[in-house]
């Protein structure tokens, strides 16, 4: 059965045969962050894929992963393209290096998970929060429920972590 949901008014759908995304988002719906771990080489991978990008292994299991990391890069949207986001500009999308498996299998690899900056309760971040975040900022994952069997993982500032000064685009 197709899983459907909505996020900020956007329609989301995962058809029955998309086994990988069905599993990923069903774990998200229980606020449990899991990634595929290859049954052959045991490396984790993101996004969900049908085979292992490191060894072509076809078997995998869904392994719990800590939703914590640091911002590797970001973009700050002032002119939204999608109507759903127009009310929330400026908004940030963050590319976050998970602490788990950073620098493996090579120094250039990391599990890099894209999501927005949101408040601790999952609302799009207001401008004063947007200004506090840049490359290096420590974040933790929160989930925003989007329907039966689907929730959207998002990033919020990790208040328990020591925060390095963020690197921000020089022109504010």
């Amino acid at each position, binding site marked *: 059965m197709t899983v459907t949901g909505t996020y900020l008014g956007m329609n989301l759908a995962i058809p029955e045969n998309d086994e990988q995304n069905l599993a990923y988002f069903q774990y998200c719906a229980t606020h449990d962050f899991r990634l595929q771990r290859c049954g052959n080489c045991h490396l984790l991978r993101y996004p969900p894929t049908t085979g292992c990008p490191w060894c072509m292994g076809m078997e995998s299991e869904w392994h719990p992963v800590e939703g914590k990391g640091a911002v590797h890069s*970001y973009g700050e949207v002032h002119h939204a393209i999608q109507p759903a986001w127009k009310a929330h500009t400026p908004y940030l999308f963050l*590319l976050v290096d998970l602490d788990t498996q950073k620098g493996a299998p090579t120094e250039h690899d990391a599990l890099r998970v894209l999501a927005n900056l949101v408040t601790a309760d999952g609302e799009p971040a207001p401008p004063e929060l947007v200004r506090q975040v840049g*490359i290096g900022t420590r974040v933790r994952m929160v989930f925003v429920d989007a329907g039966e069997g689907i929730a959207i993982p998002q990033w919020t500032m990790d208040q328990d972590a020591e925060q390095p000064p963020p690197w921000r685009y020089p022109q504010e």
Partner: protein
Amino acid sequence: MAEAKPVDGTTPQYLRDKYAIIGVGETPFMRGSGKTTRALGTWAIRNAIADAGVEPGEIDGMLSYSIGDSTATPFIAGDLGIRLNFYMDCFGGGSSTEALLGLAIGAMEAGMCQMVCIYRAMNGYSGRRIGATGRTPSTISGDGLHMAPYGFFSAGQRFAFSFMRHMYDYGTTPEQVAMVKVIHSEHASNNPKALYPRRVTVDDVLSSRMIVKPLHLLDCCLETDNGTAIIVTNAQRAYDYRHTPARVLGVVGRCNWPRMDMHYQHGPISSWAARYASKILWPNAGLGPEEIDVTGAYDAFTFTTLLGLEDFGFCEKGAGGEYVSSGVMRLGGARPNNTSGGHLCEGYTHGMNLVIENVRQLRGEIDDSCPIGANGNPEHSYDYRAGGCRQVKDVAVTANIGWAGPITCSAAVLRKG
């Protein structure tokens, strides 16, 4: 008719020098063409046929590329009364032109056809908008679930991570990057075809409204309606036609970064697929960046020109900000880039107009505002002030660098026949 020159057969495995671009043509660059892509395609091809001086019946191969926003070859060839021995319509935007140049050579080398026309026809402003306005999917599925819900959708949004990280890794400044637009606008001011011929300053770029950091409005290319076409044949035949051919020294096509599914899983993300493509292009062409007179580095955004030139070795990795702001790539500089004004100022065609410009540079027949002499060709003044000349002196070799996001790169080296 130009004098025939012998084919360099020293490296036949790469087909170096064995094929040439003999004709180029385009429609005007418009915002609101009022025409179908079918009409734009036939118009551009007719212009390329006239430019080459071929009979329409001599074209027996045709290739096109689009992102679902064009008209396929069977319709366009039919409208021109051309019967084809080979055709193929490929999916792709940026970096397709150079890749299809290689595929055209392959088709001819395989004996499938003798002369290939490659075209791109698009209503990038009035049809499927290149900036993605109005293209929000009604339902988000598949890989899109990991991107589109986050307001991560348009080209500028999808490339922002790479651009921002380049500034972080190398200290590249907004002022340096803005110089790409400034220099291309200078070039456009000498191009009667350019959609935006007005010269702009660094301050104009940095004070234009922010679209997605680090991209201001003037860091982004122009949404344009247009058709463009080039005609390719083998070097023996190439001298039977009107112009000095632009011989193809080497190509690389649609060369990829690892992990195309969200490429940023693999770093360093301040680099891109050109890191791999450059290792194919230069050996194929038998020369290196230091021997290139004019570049055509894809400028969908100011940053893409910087990344293109940097990862092809025109400067040290990380020194792109210095390179693009130094004046090297200005008309009158050591190695001008996108002398037409490029995608930022002439018009956006997913790369074809950048190749057309370099073919004209190699011929020495740039269509600027210089007076036409007795032989029918412009008499170039080499005075690059606004409204003047944009022909570069003594162009022997050019390079085009195509970008289709950080994941995909194509490129071509052409020489004066």
